[in-house]
C-alpha cells in the first residue's frame, strides 16, 4: 500500500490549504443531540491525513447531522496494522477501522477482533455492490468489511505533447501499445516509458493488469487465493508479455538499470517535469505528482485505460475497507451509512475519491476525468479485481526487498528468464 505514502506526502504540501477546509468540517461542527443516535460517541481509525482526512471527515459530519451521533476520527499513521495491533490486544479498539488491505480483514477476523456486518449495512452491501466486493470483505460465511474508497490502478498516463510530436494516439490493445505507440515514439526519438522500478508495488501492478487481462478474472482469483501455482503457464505467459516492454532498455528512461533505481513518483516527474519520457503507468493518484511537476491534469497530463492484452481490458482496483470492531450502539448504522450511495456521493463532491458502489453514478463526480474513471469501474462490473499483491500476505506481496517486489525488480533488471522468475515467485509465495 505504499502508494499512500505519496498521498500522505502530498498532504504535507497542501496542509496549509487543508487547514482552511478543516474549520468548516471538523467533527463537532454538526449539531449534537437530536436524531436517533443522539449522545452516542463513536471512534473511527484510518490512515488518511491532510486533504484525504478532510474529505472523510466531511462524510462523517453529514452522518452526525443525520443521526445526532458524534464521531471522532483518529489517524493510524502509515502502518495501520502496527497501530491497531496493540489497541486490539489491550481491548480498546476503535469502533470502526478503515483497513488498507483485505489481508488485514482476514487476520483480524481470525483473531475474533471483528464484528460481522448486520442489518442495513449487510443489505446495502448485498444490493449495491457486486458479489466480488462482498466476497472481498468476507471471511468464511461472515461478511465483515465494505470497500468504501477505491483507487483505480489500470491507467497509463501520457504527455499529449509527446504523442502529438510522434503523431500517435492512445492505443486500445497491448500490441498497439508495444508496436505502434511505443515504436513510433522511439522513431521520433522520444523514450516511450518512465518506469517506477524502485517502488516494487508499481511492478506488481504491471503484472496484475497484464495477468488479469490475459489470463482472465478466474485465474486471477485462483492465483490470489493460492489455488493456482505461480509456475502455471499463465504466469510465465504474462511475464513474457511484460518482457516485450521490460526487456527493451530503449523503451524506458535510463534503461533498465536506471528504471530499477527510479521511485514513484520520480518516474512521474520524468514524464511531466523533465519530459524524458512519454508515458508512465500507475493509478489515478498520479494526478497529484503530475500536478506538482507542473502539468495541468486533463490538459497536459492525460491517462488512457490500460489496453487489453487478452479479450478485455483489465480494471484493477485497490482501496480501503471499513470494518466494525465493537458491538457498540451506532456502529452498524455508521457502516451502513459509509457504504451507502448517499454518503459516497458526498465524498465524491470533495474530490480525490472513487466509489465501488454500483449505485454511485458517474455524474456524482465533479470533474470529467473522474467521471470517466468511475465509468470504467462500473462498466467492468463483475470483472473488476482488487490489487492482488494486497490480497496475499504482505511478506510476499508488499515488503521492501522481498517477495513479489524484489523478484519483479530482478525481472526488470534482466527479463530473460520468465520460467525462472515464475519459479522464484512460487518459492516465495506462502504455502497454502
Amino acid at each position, binding site marked *: 500500500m505504499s502508494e499512500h505514502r505519496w498521498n500522505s506526502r502530498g498532504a504535507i504540501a497542501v496542509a496549509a490549504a487543508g487547514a482552511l477546509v478543516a474549520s468548516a468540517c471538523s467533527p463537532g461542527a454538526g449539531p449534537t443531540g437530536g436524531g436517533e443516535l443522539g449522545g452516542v460517541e463513536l471512534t473511527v481509525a484510518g490512515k488518511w491525513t491532510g486533504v484525504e482526512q478532510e474529505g472523510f471527515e466531511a462524510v462523517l459530519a453529514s452522518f452526525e447531522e443525520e443521526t445526532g451521533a458524534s464521531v471522532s476520527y483518529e489517524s493510524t499513521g502509515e502502518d495501520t496494522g502496527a497501530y491497531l495491533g496493540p489497541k486490539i490486544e489491550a481491548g480498546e479498539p476503535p469502533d470502526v477501522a478503515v483497513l488498507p488491505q483485505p489481508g488485514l480483514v482476514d487476520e483480524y477476523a481470525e483473531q475474533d477482533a471483528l464484528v460481522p456486518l448486520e442489518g442495513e449495512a449487510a443489505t446495502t452491501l448485498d444490493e449495491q455492490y457486486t458479489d466480488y466486493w462482498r466476497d472481498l470483505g468476507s471471511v468464511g460465511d461472515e461478511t465483515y468489511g465494505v470497500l468504501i474508497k477505491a483507487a483505480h490502478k489500470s491507467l497509463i498516463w501520457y504527455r499529449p505533447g509527446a504523442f502529438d510530436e510522434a503523431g500517435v494516439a492512445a492505443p486500445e490493445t497491448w500490441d498497439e501499445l508495444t508496436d505502434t505507440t511505443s515504436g*513510433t515514439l522511439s*522513431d521520433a526519438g522520444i523514450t516511450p516509458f518512465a518506469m517506477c522500478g524502485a517502488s516494487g508495488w508499481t511492478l506488481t501492478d504491471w503484472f496484475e493488469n497484464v495477468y488479469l487481462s490475459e489470463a482472465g478474472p478466474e485465474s486471477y482469483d485462483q492465483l490470489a487465493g493460492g489455488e493456482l501455482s505461480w509456475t502455471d503457464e499463465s504466469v510465465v505467459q504474462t511475464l513474457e508479455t511484460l518482457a516485450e516492454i521490460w526487456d527493451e532498455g530503449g523503451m524506458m528512461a*535510463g534503461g533498465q538499470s*536506471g528504471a530499477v533505481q527510479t521511485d514513484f513518483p520520480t518516474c512521474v516527474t520524468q514524464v511531466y517535469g523533465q519530459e524524458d519520457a512519454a508515458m508512465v503507468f500507475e493509478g489515478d493518484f498520479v494526478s497529484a505528482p503530475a500536478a506538482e511537476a507542473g502539468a495541468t491534469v486533463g490538459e497536459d497530463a492525460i491517462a488512457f485505460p490500460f489496453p487489453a492484452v487478452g479479450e478485455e481490458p483489465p480494471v484493477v482496483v485497490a482501496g480501503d475497507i471499513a470494518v466494525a470492531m465493537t458491538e457498540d450502539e451506532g456502529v452498524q448504522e455508521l457502516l451502513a451509512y459509509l457504504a451507502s450511495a448517499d454518503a459516497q456521493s458526498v465524498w465524491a463532491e470533495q474530490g480525490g475519491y472513487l466509489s465501488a458502489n454500483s449505485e454511485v453514478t458517474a455524474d456524482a463526480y465533479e470533474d470529467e476525468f473522474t467521471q470517466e474513471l468511475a465509468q470504467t469501474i462500473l462498466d467492468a462490473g463483475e470483472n473488476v479485481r482488487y490489487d492482488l499483491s494486497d490480497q496475499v500476505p504482505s511478506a510476499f506481496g508488499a515488503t*521492501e526487498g522481498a517477495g513479489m517486489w524484489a523478484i519483479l525488480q530482478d525481472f526488470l533488471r534482466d527479463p530473460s528468464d520468465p520460467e525462472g522468475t515464475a519459479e522464484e515467485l512460487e518459492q516465495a509465495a506462502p504455502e497454502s
Partner: protein
Amino acid sequence: MTETGGTTPPATPDASEGAAAGDGTTAPGGTGRLGPPSWLALVFLLPALLFLGAYLVYPILFSAYRSLWDASGTEFVGLDNYLKMFTTPSTFVALRNNVIWVVVAPIVVTIAGLIFAVLTERIRWSTAFKIVIFMPMAISFLASGVIFRLVYEQDPERGLANAVITTVQDTVSAAAAYPDANPRPGAPLAEASGGGYESTEEVSPGETVFLPLVGVQADELPEGAEPAAEAAVGGQDELTGTVWLDFTRGGGGEEGAMDPEELGLPGLEVQAVRDGEVVATAFTENDGTFLLEDVGGGQYTIRLAADNFTEPYRGVTWLGPTLITPAIIGAYLWVWAGFAMVLIAAGLAAIPREALEAARVDGATEWQVFRRVTVPLLSPVLLVVFVTLMIYVLKIFDLVLVIAPGSVQADANVLALQMWRVSFGGGNDQGMGSALAVFLLVLVVPAMIFQIRRFRQESQ
C-alpha cells in the same frame, strides 16, 4: 584536535590508550579503614544494577531461551531457528555480507586512519584537518546515509560520484552526437560487425545512396540542420548520398522518403568500405548529403561509423546489486576514519622521540623507521582501533537501511538489519529474531574477552 593539538585526553585515564593507561585504573587498596559499610555501596549501586539486570542480563537469557521456540512462541523447536538461519537464502546473504564487512571495513578504516595520523603529524594546521575528518562522527548514520545516497545517485547530472567519473571519461572520449539513432525499419541498412551501420547493398562509384535513420528527436539535432536534400550524382570516382531523419514531426511522413519537413543529419561520419578496408571517409553536410571522393572502381559498402552512435557513459551503478556493499563501506569509511585517526595520532604522540632518533642515527630511512619502530610501538593502539571497529561493524544497521534503495535491500542485507526485519519490520518471527540476536552476541564474545583481559592487565 584540541587547542594543544594533542589528542590525548589530558586528565582522563583513558582506557583506549593501551600504552599510557594503567596508572589510575588500579582500584584503591583494600584497607578501607575509614570506608563506609558495604550496604551503603548497595544504595549507590542499586539503580544501575536494576537497569543492567533488566536491560542487559535478563534480555540475554530471555533471547537465548526465546530462540528455541517458533515464531509465535508456542512451540518448542530446539535449534531449528539456528539451522534455518544458515539455510534461508536471505539470511545467508546477510551472513556473507557481514563477513565482507568485518574483513574489509576495519582494515580499510584503520589504514586510512594510520595514513591520516602520520601525514598530519608535522603539519601546522593539523587540528583543522582533524576536525574536518572527525566531524562525521558527530552526525547520525541516518544523515550520513542521506548524504551518501545523494553522492551515489546514478544520474551523472545529480550524483556527485558519477558526475566526477563521467566528466573524466568524457574528456578522454567525447560523447557521440547520435547515440539513440537507428535505421528506419526496412531501410537498406544493417548493423555493422564492428558497431555502426552499413548498407546492405553494394554500390559503385557514380551511384547515390539514401540512408534513413530514426530515433532522434528533431529538437535535439545539431544547430543548422537543414531539410534533407537528395545528393547530386557524383563523378566517376565519387560516391554520394544522403543520411536523414526519416520522421515527420507529428507523424504522417512516408517511410523511406524525404518528406518536406524531414531534416538531414549533419556531421555524421560516413565511410566507403571495400573488402573490409575503409577507402574514403566523409562527413555529412547540414542537409544530410555526403560526398566520398577519390574512390577507385569496384563495389563498396557505405558504412555509418560506430563513433556516431557511441552511447554516452552513464557512470557507475553504485547502488546496484553488485556494488552496493562496497559503496556503503565507502560511506562507513567517511564516518569512522576520524575515529581511527584520532586514536592512532594519540598513540603516535606517545611514542618516545628517542626511539625514533636512535633508529635515524643508525642510518635508517624514514620508511624503515616507520616500519621497524613506529608500527611495532603503535601496534597495541592499532589493535584497539581494529577490534573496536570490528565490534561496531558487526552491528552495522542504519547505514545499510538508509543507503540501499528498496530494490537492492536484499543484496545489501546484514545480520543486524535482518534481525530487525525478521522480528519487527514485517516478519514477526521473534523466534528467528532471537536466534539472530544471540548469534550476533556470540560473534562479539571474542571482543568481550579481549576487552576484559585488556582491562585486567591494565589494572595490575
